[in-house]
């Protein structure tokens, strides 16, 4: 399946745009997504940390992603 991943902050710079499309196996988890993105965009690994959000909630690494989910990469936040 193809997943569109939204990017914010420095992740947008790393991906070169506000979203990227990633091909993942069906039943892929957020951990699989991270692995795939880190291969394509190694600079992700240099961040202090980053999270995956699924449907506007922080997602655990084991969670399964479907192509109906809204998926986003959340680099370290710095609001306020």
């Amino acid at each position, binding site marked *: 399946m193809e997943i569109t991943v939204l990017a914010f902050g420095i992740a947008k710079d790393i991906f070169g745009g506000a979203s990227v499309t990633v091909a993942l196996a069906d039943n892929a988890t957020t951990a699989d997504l991270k692995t795939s993105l880190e291969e394509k965009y190694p600079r992700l690994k240099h961040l202090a940390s980053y999270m995956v959000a699924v449907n506007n909630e922080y997602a655990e690494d084991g969670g399964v992603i479907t192509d109906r989910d809204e998926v986003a990469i959340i680099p370290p936040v710095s*609001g*306020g």
Partner: protein
Amino acid sequence: MQTQIEIHTEPLNIQACIDWIMSPDSGGIDVFIGTVRNATKGKPVLKLEFEAYNKMAINEIEKITKQAFDKWPVQKVLVHHRTGTLQVGEIPVIIAVSAAHRDAAFEACRYIIDTLKQTVPIWKKEFFEDGEVWVAAHP
């Protein structure tokens, strides 16, 4: 339990926030106003840019305000956050909390700003004379 949560690019309006938060039931209001400082670790800052994942940010702020209502006897909670380009001296965030007694207002207000800075998907880029940096992105 009344909340007003907003994220937008317009300048934040302090008086409107105060007008909303005041009520005859409350005895104390604590307001935190974040402002864009002219320097970071001694280095002059020219401007800031704030970006938010709006829907999720609202979601996370709602969680924080609910926690505040669970933890303290507060009456109203307001969180306004601005996005876009801000000049030095401008206001990225206003948090206001009203309560019958001031302790709850102080504690909840501080909890909300502290937690917002840890969990809410909003990002700040600082612009210096010699470059720009996403705050907290790298170790």
